[in-house]
Structures are given as structure tokens and as C-alpha cells.
């Protein structure tokens, strides 16, 4: 097993390096320039000075290696320093955002909690909704429950989240005033009232994201259950006189969950992509909003870093999925 995990890890490294190069070049070589954010009232000489102070004028390869060094060496050092109060970094230049001059990692760190709270809740909720629906739909295939479930799931992943989001906003915020229209990121949950306020402001985005994800997961659960229900071992178990509950929930479910677990693990990074839209619609200042904002002002270090962090997440969860697969299904790990 260890061998298997190690092998997967080793493959991940060159992939990540290649991705870093692709992302860096793609963003860096594009036309457009951070200078466009400087108002027209600023004279050209000052403009040129500002650009120079950002280090924009170095050649591409120099900036790539500097970025890599900062990403993999300087920033982790600062991370260690912050955690243990050491001073390994010794003031080495950090990865700095063009537009706000803040270290990119600090910026991402400030944004991450919002995204994780909203997306995390939505995803957990989606899984909790999707599994029972998927299981029951498969068990009672072609029943009215299954038909409705299928229809709702189809709608769930056919109607784009920005449309559902806007509809909910018009209905519940603009017309009914039930929910706040601006997400308050400085709210800290310390007591019952603040917890209620937090739930209150999360309801709409969580519903939108959960509906979308639940649709997909329930479909996978259903088809995986269907496949296993038709297997011989199910017939055998029933023939032995086992209770229907034991057969379905113990034998079939356990076997069906293998692919579902993979789908859930692989779905996490894509949810980050979907969150870009949800954050935009519901004005949550999370990672997605930071990315869009940075793209708009040509804040290349932020764009590159967020894109690359997402790539790392994807590779990581791929790895997790592989390992889970290996754990759940012994046949895989000796492959």
C-alpha cells in the first residue's frame, strides 16, 4: 500500500511542475497590463515608475524562477516562522500582489475561511442529501420517487447556478427581504445570535451550491447501486434469507460506495470552480471573488498563485481518491 501511495506521489511531482509552468506562462505572456488600473490623472513618468517598482520589467524566465522559489521556498519558511515564531525567512522578498502590495499568501489566507465555510457546508449538505435519495431511487427503480428524483437531479445540474442564484436573490432578498444581500466576512461566531446571523447569511449560497452538487452525486449513487443490485452476490445473500435491510445497506451499499467516494473526492476541487460563480452572485469575498478581481486588474501574482493552488488541490484530491480506491478495493493496489 505504501509503495502504491509513493508511486502516485512521485507521478504527481512532474505533473505539478509542468502545470506551474503552463499557468505561469499563460498568465504572464498575455497582453494587458497592470498599469491600466492607474487612473488617467497620473502622469506617464509616474506611471512608468510605479510599473518599475512592481518588478514587471524583468525577463520572463527570471520571474518564473523567482516565483517558483518564492512559492516553494520563501513562503513555506514564512509559514513556519508564523507558526513557531522562528526567523528562517530572514526578510526574504515575498510573493507580493501588484494591486494591494500584500503578500499573496496572506491575502489567500484571509479569503480561504469564507470560501471553505460556504463551500464546505454546501458540499457536506449535498452529500447528506444525495446519498439517501440515490440509494432509495435505485432500490425502487422506475417508481414515482425515482422518476421525481431523476427529474430534480436533471434540473439540478442543467440549470446554471448563476441563474438559480439570481432567481433566489430576486425572490428572497429583493422582494421578501428575508436574507441579507451582502455577505459579512468579519462576523465571528461566538454565541447563539452570531451563529444565527451566520446561518442566515449562508442559506442562499449554500442552497444553490448544495442543489447543484447533490444532483450529481445522487445520480452516481443511483447508477452504482443499480449495477450492484443486479449482481449475483445479492441474489445469494437474499437466498440465504438475510433481511432486506442488511442486504441493501450492508452488502450493496458498501460495494456501491467505492465509485461514489471517488466522485465525491474528485468533486471537491471542481466545486472551487463553481464557487467562483456563486461568490460572484452572492457577493462573498472568498477565493473565487479574489481571483476574478485579480484577473480584472491584471494582478498577475495573485492570479498565478490562486490558479496554481487550485491545481495543487486537484492533484491532491486525485491522489486522495486513488488512495481511497486502493483502500476500499484491494484489487487496485496490486495492479
Amino acid at each position, binding site marked *: 500500500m505504501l509503495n502504491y501511495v509513493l508511486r502516485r506521489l512521485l507521478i504527481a511531482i512532474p505533473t505539478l511542475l509542468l502545470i506551474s509552468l503552463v499557468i505561469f506562462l499563460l498568465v504572464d505572456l498575455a*497582453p*494587458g*497590463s*497592470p*498599469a*491600466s*488600473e*492607474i*487612473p*488617467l*490623472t*497620473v*502622469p*506617464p*513618468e*509616474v*506611471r*512608468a*515608475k*510605479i*510599473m*518599475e*517598482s512592481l518588478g514587471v520589467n524583468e525577463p520572463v524566465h527570471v520571474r518564473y524562477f523567482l516565483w517558483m522559489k518564492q512559492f516553494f521556498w520563501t513562503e513555506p519558511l514564512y509559514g513556519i516562522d508564523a507558526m513557531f515564531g522562528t526567523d528562517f525567512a530572514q526578510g526574504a*522578498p*515575498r510573493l*507580493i*500582489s501588484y*494591486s*494591494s*502590495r*500584500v*503578500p499573496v499568501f*496572506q*491575502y489567500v489566507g*484571509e*479569503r480561504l475561511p469564507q470560501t471553505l465555510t460556504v463551500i464546505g457546508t454546501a458540499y457536506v449538505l449535498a452529500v447528506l442529501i444525495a446519498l439517501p435519495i440515490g440509494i432509495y431511487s435505485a432500490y425502487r427503480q422506475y417508481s414515482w420517487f425515482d422518476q421525481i428524483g431523476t427529474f430534480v437531479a436533471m434540473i439540478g445540474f442543467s440549470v446554471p447556478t448563476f441563474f438559480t442564484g439570481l432567481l433566489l436573490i430576486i425572490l428572497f432578498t*429583493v422582494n421578501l427581504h428575508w436574507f*441579507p*444581500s*451582502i*455577505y*459579512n*466576512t*468579519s*462576523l*465571528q461566531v*461566538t454565541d447563539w*445570535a*452570531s451563529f444565527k*446571523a451566520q446561518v442566515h*447569511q449562508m442559506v442562499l449560497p449554500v442552497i444553490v451550491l448544495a442543489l447543484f452538487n447533490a444532483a450529481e452525486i445522487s445520480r452516481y449513487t443511483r447508477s452504482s447501486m443499480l449495477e450492484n443490485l443486479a449482481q449475483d452476490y445479492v441474489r445469494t445473500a437474499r437466498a440465504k434469507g438475510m433481511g432486506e435491510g442488511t442486504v441493501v445497506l450492508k452488502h450493496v451499499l458498501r460495494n456501491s460506495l467505492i465509485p461514489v467516494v471517488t466522485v465525491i473526492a474528485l468533486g471537491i476541487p471542481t466545486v472551487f470552480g463553481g464557487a467562483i460563480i456563486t461568490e460572484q452572485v452572492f*457577493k*462573498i*469575498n472568498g477565493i473565487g*471573488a*479574489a481571483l476574478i*478581481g485579480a484577473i*480584472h*486588474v*491584471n494582478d498577475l501574482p495573485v492570479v498565478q498563485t490562486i490558479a496554481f493552488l487550485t491545481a495543487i488541490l486537484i492533484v491532491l484530491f486525485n491522489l486522495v481518491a486513488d488512495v481511497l480506491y486502493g483502500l476500499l478495493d484491494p484489487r487496485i493496489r496490486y495492479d
Partner: protein
Amino acid sequence: MKLRTALLGAVALAGMASGANAERGTDGHVNVLYWQAPSILNPYLSSGTKDVEAASLVLEGLAGFDEKGEVFARLAVDVPTVANGGITEDLTQITWKLKPGLVWSDGSPVTSADAKFTWEYCTHPEGGCAQAARYEGITAIETPDAETIVVKFSAPKPNPYQAFVGGTSPILQAAQFANCLGAAASSCNEQNFKPIGTGPFVVKDFKVNDVVELEANANYRDAAKPAFATMTVKGGGDAVAAARAVMETGEFDYAWNTQINPEMQAQMIAAGKGVLLNGFGTLVERVEMNMTDPDPALPEGERSTTKHPHPILSDINVRKALSMAIDRQTLVDIGYGSAGRATCNLVPAPEMFASDNTGCLTQDIEGAKALLESSGWVDGNGDGIREKDGKPLKIVYQTSTNPVRQDFQAVIKSWWNEIGVDVELKNIDASVFFGGDAGSPDTFQKFYADVEMYANNFDGTDPEPYLGQYLCNKIPGPENQWQGENINRFCDPAYDTLWAELSKTSEMGKRAEIAKQLNDMLTKDSFTVVSLVDRGRLSAASNTLGGVVLNTWDTELWNAQDWTRLK
């Protein structure tokens, strides 16, 4: 109190408000929404309005501009003038006196050394200071004593209220920023995000591009102010959401720059929770005519340069006809409503500098047709497009990508089609259009189109540098990496001479007269700049917020110390 949500806070606090003549901090919490979130609180490292304005709650200059555009003293005892002896007769020196007993929010005294340091900070060659222009022409700053600041200029400066005046050039605390000079400026996070200032508020917490939490400055010079104990400046979303949060849902007390279309304005006002404030500054949306030939067939380096005059637009009658065909009031109604007004001027304000040029305000399609007809532009082949000497009236009309601008483009195109001009529309992403990248063909400076539309304004109240952009030697071209500001490639020796006179004149009435003449030369005399809309500022304030005065000459939060909670 800080645990309360913005939502609950606004509602709960409305109840416990205590009226206008409050002591410091008795009015609780105030919520301000900047939909473009502040990214840094040091105006010297960012020229974005949002950053400058948020910072102005903390950092102050010696003086500021009030809502009429007049200079008033902040940290200074009074505003120096030639009359009171603060400015020397030859206009090369201005002397400021600090108010006695001023302290920073950390309790240490404010001295003239801080001002001198600020000048050094911004003029450091490696600092990339965004406000360097405000310190231009200063040769030395002397500090004879702790309360006196003497600024010396290399040449007579008719408008000396630039350095240390307004939200864009506040005074930094020398002690705090001592290690942030030059290249180190941008890595001073603590300083840039939590500057120590003299303003009514102090930064408690700052989240980049998201939210600034502030509390009242315990050492503020007026013991009764500010009335609010804490303030949140929240960022994010868009103008519509911001307006809604104040006007419809009441979650926020004040929203900055809520530029929304007229229908939305009416709807929001009907909700009755707040008011839309509007004020006019110097921002003018205009169509600029290219006086040089942008023909793609010309070799690179000669396109849109003074080597080739424009084949069509060099004819003033064509430019005039294009201007006559536009109904400016309709544009205002579509795009800006009460936040805009039709104008023919390049310099629409301040009052004394605005020319009484209103000839363009009535649309005259028939007149435009007749003018083209009489100057030889006729539709010979019946395709609906006029031509002369084999040159058809075909123009490319570019602007940046932005919904209002695209609506304007569509409407103006149909008017120009009406008078027999073929128009090709082009919109370019703002990051490229305003990016100034000499390698890109689509920047507004390169102007590889016949006409282009954008908005521009000038800092403060003095239009001299702004009008100076249209001098012959400011024409962008390959030899200066396309960095000139004379976008139209307008060149008139008479204009240059008149501008030189302006820069030597110090008497205000005379200056205004010359500025008006210059404005007219560019607009109604030559139609080089076809002004469309004087774009105002539109902000939203809750009915429960008192003391708000919209100021378009300085930061909108200029009088936050006077804000109160109304019952």
C-alpha cells in the same frame, strides 16, 4: 459591539441613537459600503479612489477641499495665501503652520518633520509613489521649527495647494514609515494597512479587498468627534447591490459611487430607506477625434502619427457634423439619469473655469446633413454613405468594454448612420485599452481608430495641467513609447502660446478667462474633443445617517467626523 452583524447592528443602533450634539463615540456603529473594496490604506502606493478615500478616514493633509472645491485648513492653522503672507509675492514659496498641540492617534506629537518626511517618502526614486505629481516642482522643504513647514518651488507656482492638500497627499508619521523608504515601501505591510494618522478613525482590522474595521481615534483633535464609536468599510459586489443595501434593505448606512441606471434609481428611491446624493466634478465622458490617419495599410510606426493627417476628420465640417448629430440629453437619460448632465465643455467645473458653451446641446440631424452636403460630402452611389474625392465617410469608433459605453456606442452609431456616416464599433477590454502597453495596438494612446470614447478628469480644482495635455509636444508616438497625453494629436501653436501664458498668470480671474478660451479652442472652435456627458458622483446615504455632505473635489469621506445617527 463588534460581534454584532452589520445587519443587526444597523437596525439595533438606529434605536439607541442619541441625536446630533453627541459626545465622541455615543452613536455606536456606522456601516459604509465601497463596492470596489479598498486594497491598501496608503494613498501613496495606490491611485485607486477607493484606497485614497478609505485611507482618508485615518490620514489627513494640512488642508482639504470642501464641497465647493475651496481649500480649507485641516492640520494647518489656516490656509496660506499671498494676502495673509503665507505665500511669497513671487509664488515660489508657501509656509504652512501646524495647529498647536496636534497628536497622532498613538499620542505622539505631529511635527513639521513628518511633513518633510512625507515629501521624501513620495519623491524617493525607487518608491514608485503614485502621487508623485503632487510634489512636482518642490526643491526643498524647510522646517525652521516643529510647527512650521516651508515649501520651496523651483518656479512660480500659481496653484501651490497640491502637496499636503486633499486626500491624495496626506501626511505620514515619520516614526512609523522610517524604514519604508524607496524599494522597501511595498513590503511594509503593517504600515500600509494600519497607518497611524490624525483622522477621526483608527484602523482596527484590515482585510485586503474585503473589509476595514475602524474605531474612533481617542486622540482626535475635537473632543466631541467623531460621533460614531466604530465604523466598518465593507467592499465587494457591484454598484447595484451597493445601492440596494442602503436604499432597499437598509443593511448599510452609506454606499459610495452607486452608479446605476435611471430606472433603478427611481425604483430605489421609491423604497424610501435612503437618499441618492449627487454632485458634479470634472469627469467628462467624451468622444475624441483622431487628427492623424490610423489606416492599417500604413507601415507600423506611421499609423496614427503626425506624419499623416486624417483623410476625413481633418475636415472640421465632418467633426462638427458628427457632434451635431448627437443628442446628449438622450445619452444622459439612458446611462446616468440624475448622475449626469449634458455638456459641451472639456472643463465643466469649477464654476469659474466653466465656459458658457452650450451650442451643442440641441441635436440637429438635418443641420448636420446640410453641413456635410455643403462641404462636398455627398452620397454619389446611393449606398447611404457619403463620400468626397473617392473617400467614403467610414469611421471606426472604439471604447472600453463597459455596458453604458456599449449602449452609447449603439445609439451614437445609429445617429451617425442617419447622417450618412458608416460606423464600425469596436470595444476593447479596459485592462488593455487603458493599459498603456506600448506593445499592444489597442491602447487609447495609440488610437488606431478614427474616434474613441472614454472619460477623464483632473485632480483638484486647477485645470492648468489638464489643459496642458493638448500641447503639441505631448503628442504620443513611437519616439516616446506612445506615452503622450495629447490623444487627439491636436496641435495648434496659438493654443501652446495661450497655455504658456496661463502657466505664468497668477491672478484668478485672468486664469479662469484663459482656461475658458483654451477649453473653447478644443471644443466648440475645433470639435477636436466632442464632450458628451458631465458625469457626476452618485452615492447613497441612509435616512438615519446625518451630516453627510457629498464632496466631489476631495474624498467622499472628507467629513466623516461630522457624521451622526439621526433618530
